């Protein structure tokens, strides 16, 4: 028996995968090829653990133009226009280097949207950190927000919504998710594939350097002390080049000579070329000597795996090459002609006149899936049986305390650092409502967008947590008058090799799929981030299945003057926030609140039961009409109180005063929490 040669480079493949690679190629791979398989078969690029589970999500509707499998989902918003949107996680880099980790997260997601031919029009950032009191959290929070702001503001894409959640499980592994939406004419959508042999490959944008090499395999490990040594795996962002890249790519696509376009993100040139060729059923030939580089002496392994930022790959019709290059020269975008699309069915990489890799692209793009074990965590039953705390007495005091907790407190400190107005589309701005609303100037309609997740719900009950995330996100866009059209999800979990973690993931997705079918809202894409776990304490993050939603508003007026859903902190907090934002008083009789069974006062006030919305309207007649409509639809509803022109927040039960707070006092507590924790005095 011939013994296999030792693998010349470090790979994270399992012994079984190593055997498969050898069998597929029928020979000993070169070190470059080992690197390419290693990166493409990593969890981050291949979704090898999650794919079988994600298949459960419904993905189609008449409005879905492009579903999962491509860079971003694309949805019809009428009048010949479409919205492309996608979410991604940048958790691991942000936990090591918050500023550049978060910034390059934005950079990557914007390139994904751009690759569909869409102009990026908005960003959303769901963030999760440890307890706000710790130094580490303050450092991460401050620099993640700064990274997002500096990058997003510079490229002129408004950051219009997001979430910030604080919980001790995110202390080591903060979660930085970034979503981007773009607008594109339906007949101008680009798909990331190489269809035409003979097309010239032009690599544009940032020069290739050694930064980010193995960023992907790093994202598929848990964070440890050694991760500090992984710092070179965090890329450095350059928003100025990105802004030029956006304008140049959009102008280049207008020429009609570009047949395929894709960004270079995780997995670098390897991922982009193999995926595009696999989708188009074509081949590729690359000459690595032609790349414009930042550093001398890079070897082919490094060139194929580098994750240097701000790069995109174009497949250009040779007839229009000079026109395309002319646009790049106008914007002073560096570029190099690196090869061509072929009909060989192989990805061939050459360096110094030698073939260093020759692999059928689908071997790389279609990694073998792994069937993971799922097991319900033992402690869950115990958690469900925890005894209720004693009912508190002074609810006014509790309400003041609740509005000051970091998870509920005002996030103005965050969104004032983001330019949320650029683009002149933002009608409802951060902090205004349950969702952000941006107009589509081209059609006179508007879209509503929001991201939602309640990691505590998910921790206690992943199925209902996953279902609840979609329920809440759709409620939020409904509250601004939009019809939910589609969503994309970002799954943030611990180590999937642990059956308990995989069970959380599986149940979460099943819950999401259930709600998705019930509400008839399809999933058009998603992202999975595993290994969000502290290597020392072995504590995984609370399962965080974030839903990022798209709603469409056809018509901007209605019966309702304000609408707000009950989520964190329940009914009392929902009412309090409406009073604070409206700078008006509220008088509500709690005995009028529809309940399924008699419940305790603290439950009535603070229960986070789903599917509840508070509406205000200007006349009694309107109110009657609203109740009539609710009745017809079978939704429990009641007239519970009124808005008053004073500073009093009063909740009674059958005439008995339960809560009596001052709106201005609540506002002060609500507003000061986050700046107080972060500002240096």
């Amino acid at each position, binding site marked *: 028996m011939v013994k296999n040669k030792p693998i010349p480079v470090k790979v994270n493949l399992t012994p079984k995968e190593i055997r498969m690679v050898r069998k597929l190629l029928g020979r000993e791979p070169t070190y470059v090829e080992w690197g390419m398989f290693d990166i493409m078969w990593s969890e981050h690029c291949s979704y090898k653990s999650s794919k079988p589970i994600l298949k459960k999500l419904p993905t189609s509707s008449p409005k879905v133009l492009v579903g999962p499998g491509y860079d971003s989902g694309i949805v019809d918003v009428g009048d010949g226009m479409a919205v492309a949107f996608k979410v991604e996680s940048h958790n691991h880099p942000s936990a090591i280097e918050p500023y550049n980790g978060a910034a390059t997260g934005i950079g990557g997601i914007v390139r994904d949207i751009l690759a569909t031919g869409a102009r990026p029009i908005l960003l959303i950032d769901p963030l999760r950190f440890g307890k706000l009191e710790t130094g580490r959290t303050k450092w991460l929070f401050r620099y993640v927000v700064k990274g997002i702001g500096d990058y997003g*503001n510079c490229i002129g894409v408004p950051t219009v919504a997001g979430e910030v959640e604080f919980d001790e499980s995110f202390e080591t592994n903060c979660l930085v998710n970034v979503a981007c939406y773009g607008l594109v004419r339906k007949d101008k959508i680009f798909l990331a594939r190489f269809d035409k042999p003979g097309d010239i490959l032009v690599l544009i944008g940032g020069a290739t350097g050694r930064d980010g090499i193995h960023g992907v395999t790093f994202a598929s490990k848990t964070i440890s002390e050694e991760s500090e040594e992984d710092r070179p795996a965090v890329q450095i962002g350059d928003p*100025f080049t990105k*802004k030029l890249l956006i304008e140049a790519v959009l102008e280049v696509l207008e020429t009609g000579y570009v047949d395929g376009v894709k960004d270079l993100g995780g997995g670098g040139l390897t991922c982009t070329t193999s995926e595009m060729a696999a989708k188009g059923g074509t081949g590729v030939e690359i000459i690595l000597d032609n790349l414009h580089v930042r550093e001398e002496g890079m070897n082919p392994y490094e060139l194929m795996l580098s994750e240097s930022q701000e790069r995109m790959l174009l497949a250009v019709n040779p007839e229009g090459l000079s026109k395309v290059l002319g646009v790049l020269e106008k914007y002073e975008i560096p570029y190099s002609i690196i090869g061509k699309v072929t009909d060989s069915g192989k990805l061939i990489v050459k360096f110094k006149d030698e073939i260093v890799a020759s692999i059928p692209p689908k071997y790389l793009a279609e990694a073998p899936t792994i069937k993971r074990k799922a097991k319900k965590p033992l402690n869950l039953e115990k958690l469900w049986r925890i005894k209720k705390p004693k009912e508190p007495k002074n609810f006014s005091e509790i309400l003041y305390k609740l509005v000051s907790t970091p998870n509920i407190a005002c996030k103005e400190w965050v*969104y004032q650092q983001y330019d949320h107005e*650029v*683009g002149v589309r933002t009608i409802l701005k951060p902090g205004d409502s349950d969702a952000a609303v941006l107009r589509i100037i081209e059609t006179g309609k508007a879209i509503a967008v929001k991201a939602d997740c309640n990691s505590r719900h998910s921790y206690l009950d992943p199925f209902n947590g996953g279902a609840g995330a979609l329920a809440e996100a759709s409620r939020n866009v409904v509250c601004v008058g939009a019809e939910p059209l589609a969503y994309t999800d970002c799954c943030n979990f611990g180590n999937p090799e642990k059956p308990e973690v995989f069970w959380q993931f599986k149940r979460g997705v099943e819950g999401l799929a259930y709600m998705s079918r019930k509400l008839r809202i399809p999933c058009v894409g998603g992202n999975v981030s595993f290994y969000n776990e502290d290597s020392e304490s072995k504590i995984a993050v609370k399962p965080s299945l974030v839903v990022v939603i798209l709603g469409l508003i056809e018509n901007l007026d209605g019966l309702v003057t304000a609408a707000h859903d009950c989520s964190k902190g329940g009914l009392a907090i929902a009412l309090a926030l409406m009073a604070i934002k409206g700078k008006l008083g509220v008088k509500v009789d709690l005995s009028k609140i529809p309940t399924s069974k008699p419940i305790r006062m603290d439950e009535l006030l603070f229960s986070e039961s789903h599917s509840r919305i508070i509406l205000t309207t200007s006349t009694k007649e309107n109110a009657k009409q609203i109740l009539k409509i609710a009745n017809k639809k079978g939704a429990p509803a009641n007239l519970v109180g009124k808005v008053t022109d004073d500073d009093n927040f009063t909740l009674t039960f059958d005439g008995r005063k339960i809560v009596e707070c001052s709106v201005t006092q609540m506002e002060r507590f609500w507003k000061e929490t986050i700046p107080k924790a972060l500002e240096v005095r």
Partner: protein
Amino acid sequence: MKVAVIQFPGSNCDLDVVHVLRNILNIPTDLVWHKFFQNKIYDAAILPGGFSYGDYLRSGAIASHSPAMEEVKKMAEDGKPVLGICNGFQILIEAGLLPGALLPNDCLKFVCKWVILKCETSRTAFTCLIPEGKILYMPVAHKEGRYFNLEEDLKSIWKEQQVVFRYVDENGNPTLEANPNGSIQNIASVCNKEGNVVGLMPHPERASEKILSPYKNSDGLLLFESMINYLKR
């Protein structure tokens, strides 16, 4: 009448200004790449907001050396209206067309929020339709917008009526709370001696349609309407 919106590498409010001029006011408008800008073809020029050259070195510093700025200077000398918004204001200051300096905000952070402005003079090309003392609502979005000038020069710009807008509260008072960035004397906007070149940190193009304003007005439009009025005179 033809207006140029000059696009520098890194400008990002260029299309927003073009939208307001073309779609709201129906003014023939060209979006002009900075290298191709020629003063004689246009009646007015607008330098939009953004991060020209990534704000490297200092906001506006590199763009102020663009060949386009020689053309803008000629335009200013000819008395044609020139408006610099946000980064455009920074460029005009760096190019020496407007007095003073714009420093990093006192909070050291980017600030995006709606502010209240008071018009201090109606004599400029961009405020000739705005009565002195009028209150306007517009958003700011910048990291380096703290206006600064030396005491003597401040005296001189007041004397020459070169202060165009100040940050104020609802009652028109230039209070500390109303000042988003620590600008000296709450100054948000200045003009040249002649009044045809104006720079301001707030974004009038983001406040030119009621639907975008939390105050349901279109105060920003007044600046562009003033420009049209000025050109027709």
